[in-house]
């Protein structure tokens, strides 16, 4: 009895240690850090090749990027990136590739901006209406791909890419034909600006009159919600099970068709939120210069953050920082496209690093289980 007790004690102790094991945590952090270093090295080589000093470049980026103005811009950029990456990540967790986040958020932003500009409601209702319209439009647009996949077997990568193109054309048509109000003398066209009741004020930041998007809290909320949905809910379990092994999920009673439909809709709904911080916090109207391509940035950031809400936050901040601090490069005569190279190499090397870590860890665990079991037990027990 006491032997068994001791054995169980050591077992639970070991489990505790395994969960807290510093080397495990270290591996999780060291891998991306090394990957970042590697990306910096590659970029340094490119910089030297283009005749610029890497040290000077990185230093000026850091100095400039950490000015209050740029910190605010970085946080704002990261907010939209974060929403974009989460929208992508929820699909990725079940191996569903929603490449159409880009079209979904643009269409959602356009239609919600139009609705928001057309109505006047008390503040909370006005904002709520705009957000609901955006989420609905994003979800509906993404669902087209979900329905095509489930009922016609169309690969979602293909259909969402096509839907991006259609969203672009449809958006341009709607904007130019029905939604636009012309501003005298401007060559820009956009929807009617959303009234004050539909706007969300920014948060002041010391040292700058740039304001942090009020909807930065929406991003935090979405991140927490994502975590609970994916890791704590039954739906999330089914989602992850489908991603890890569709066949096992089916055998366990998961309806993959239902999961595809739901996940596409959720991903699209989240995509609908991407444009909200910009729309409600800064531009108040969807016009020709509304930021584009956020959905694609989201794919890279989701990969970078390993589809994990905390990892994605780091990825979004990193990309936002690189975007903002790149502006100083131009001023110093360094091609700012170097930042695109950095972002590309970061994503590539981080993904490779994760894969290496994953394999190392599987091997470690297998050998750990091996050593753990090889020692004391006698085969007699097995045959008992």
């Amino acid at each position, binding site marked *: 009895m006491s032997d068994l007790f001791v054995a169980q004690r050591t*077992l639970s102790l*070991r*489990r505790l240690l*395994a*969960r807290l094991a510093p080397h495990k945590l270290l591996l999780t952090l060291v891998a991306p850090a090394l990957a970042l270093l590697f990306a910096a090295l590659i970029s340094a080589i490119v910089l030297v090749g283009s005749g610029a000093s890497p040290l000077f470049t990185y230093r000026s980026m850091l100095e400039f990027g950490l000015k209050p103005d740029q910190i605010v811009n970085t946080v704002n950029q990261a907010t939209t990136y974060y929403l974009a990456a989460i929208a992508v990540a929820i699909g990725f967790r079940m191996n569903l590739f929603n490449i159409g986040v880009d079209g979904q958020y643009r269409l959602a932003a356009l239609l919600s901006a139009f609705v928001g500009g057309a109505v006047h409601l008390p503040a909370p209702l006005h904002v709520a209406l705009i957000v609901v319209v955006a989420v609905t439009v994003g979800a509906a647009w993404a669902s087209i791909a979900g329905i095509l996949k489930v009922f016609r077997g169309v690969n979602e990568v293909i259909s969402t890419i096509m839907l991006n193109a259609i969203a672009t054309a449809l958006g341009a048509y709607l904007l130019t034909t029905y939604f636009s109000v012309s501003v005298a003398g401007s060559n820009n066209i956009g929807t009617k600006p959303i009234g004050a009741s539909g706007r969300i004020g920014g948060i002041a930041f010391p040292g700058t009159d740039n304001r942090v998007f009020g909807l930065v809290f929406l991003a935090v909320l979405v991140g927490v919600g994502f975590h609970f949905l994916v*890791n*704590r*809910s*039954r*739906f*999330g*379990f*089914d989602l*992850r*099970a489908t991603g*890890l*092994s569709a*066949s*096992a*999920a*089916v*055998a*366990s*009673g*998961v*309806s993959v068709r239902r999961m595809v439909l739901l996940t596409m809709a959720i991903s699209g709904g989240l995509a609908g939120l991407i444009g909200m911080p910009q729309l409600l916090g800064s531009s108040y109207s969807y016009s020709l210069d509304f930021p584009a391509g956020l959905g694609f940035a989201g794919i890279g950031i989701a990969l970078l953050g390993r589809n994990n809400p905390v990892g994605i936050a780091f990825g979004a901040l990193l990309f936002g920082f690189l975007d903002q601090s790149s502006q100083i490069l131009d001023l110093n005569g360094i091609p700012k496209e170097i930042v695109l190279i950095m972002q590309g190499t970061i994503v590539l090397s981080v993904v490779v690093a994760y894969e290496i870590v994953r394999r190392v860890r*599987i091997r470690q*665990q*297998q*050998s*750990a*289980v*091996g*050593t*753990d*079991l*090889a020692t004391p*037990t*006698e*085969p*007699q*027990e*097995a*045959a*008992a």
Partner: protein
Amino acid sequence: MIGITKRFPGVVANSDINITVRRGDVHAIVGENGAGKSTLMKILYGMQKPDEGTIKIQDKQMSFSSPADAIAAGIGMVHQHFMLADNLTVLENVILGSEPTRAGRLNFAEARQRINGISKAYGLDVDPDDLVEHLGVGDRQRVEIIKVLYRGASILILDEPTAVLVPQEVDELFNNLRLMREEGQTIIFISHKLDEVLSLADAITVIRRGTTVATVQPGQVSARDLAQLMVGSELPVPELRESTVTDQVELQVQGLTVLSADGRTVIDDVSFAIHRGEIVGIAGVEGNGQAELVEALMGIRPAEAGRIVLAGQDVTALSTRARREAGIAFIPEDRHRQGLLLESPLWENRILGHQTRPPNTVGLFIDRSGARRDTERIVKDYDVRTPSIDVPASALSGGNQQKLIVGREMSDDPSLLVAAHPTRGVDVGAQAAIWDNLRTARAQGLAVLLISADLDELIGMSDRLKVLLRGRLVADADPRTVTPEDLGSAMTGAASEVGP
């Protein structure tokens, strides 16, 4: 070939293994599943590199970094799972990867000639122009062997070649292998079926827990001796004691017809019933509709016609989840594909298939502590050997994975268990434990549908036997009287009625 010495400290797989295979021998390597046979063969075939140790062929030290190196050294491998392209002909499959060319064009004539030569020399009777998808399992295996010989192998490794064959096909295979031996081919034969090994091999090496225990001559030992060498203890025997069959029908299948994805009828008008406390075994050569029958029962594949009634409730139209909630438990034939999330920890695997029921969930949320507690229970009650419930399922050996699945499926008080090959690829210890679990559950009134390729298991563990051939239930058999040979004939359609 004079000596293979191989030594390396693998934590689980192999440690300090020494095997010497003489040229022209059939050398059997036996051991439980998970003893390290497959790893050893993968090293010999260049698929994995040893940490330590050397391989020598005819006193020459070899170092293989890929199967291509091994092939170049004259080593060929026939895998347990065939690696053939279904929509190509035998000829095309054989030459795939080593196509003979003349002036840049495929030289089919020469290839055909060589294939015919090989099949004649060893009695490997296959038509080079048949499409592989039309071939049976035995034929496919012959194609694999021809493929290896075609590449000029003089040392053949056969990994569990009889696992998928019926007894008649096994005899044929052994005749082929004897012919090869006469021609001077060296054969390394991996198996855990001791009778077969004793009847064929010239030398037998026993592996246990990753290391070589002994090398013996077949004349010197009995099957029992070998078995004890393998497991270090007595072999378990599949058997049921007194009947626990009740008169309450738990599962009633009526006129079940199932179509394949391309519209062929794979289960054709099948009807049977299972009572509470009864195990009904389905015998059949693999690919005769077992997988489809199981999937139709589980609601994974739709029924084209017929009814499935569980304890009086028609479940034909229910989803997989609803059926599971109604009390159907499921041990899938391929635990990696259908039974586990390999990368997830054990406690999450406990939830799989039971996502909607306590102790795993509270409302719409996962109950982590509940699931963890219950996983600890399964690990303890079902003797799952693991250091913790936080390791991923992939870290466990096959037997322990299977015990986890059995433990999981026995939870939540099921009334019907669909068990497809429940002991496939598990060690004897786990096998005995799983059989024990089945017996206990049966005594408590569980109805079990047992599908297995292991005829001893089927005969020993079933209250009634049915033979499935080309999607139809063609015969019944009484497990108390039927022999594996009789059952084998019925499975291939040679006999329509089995037993006395």
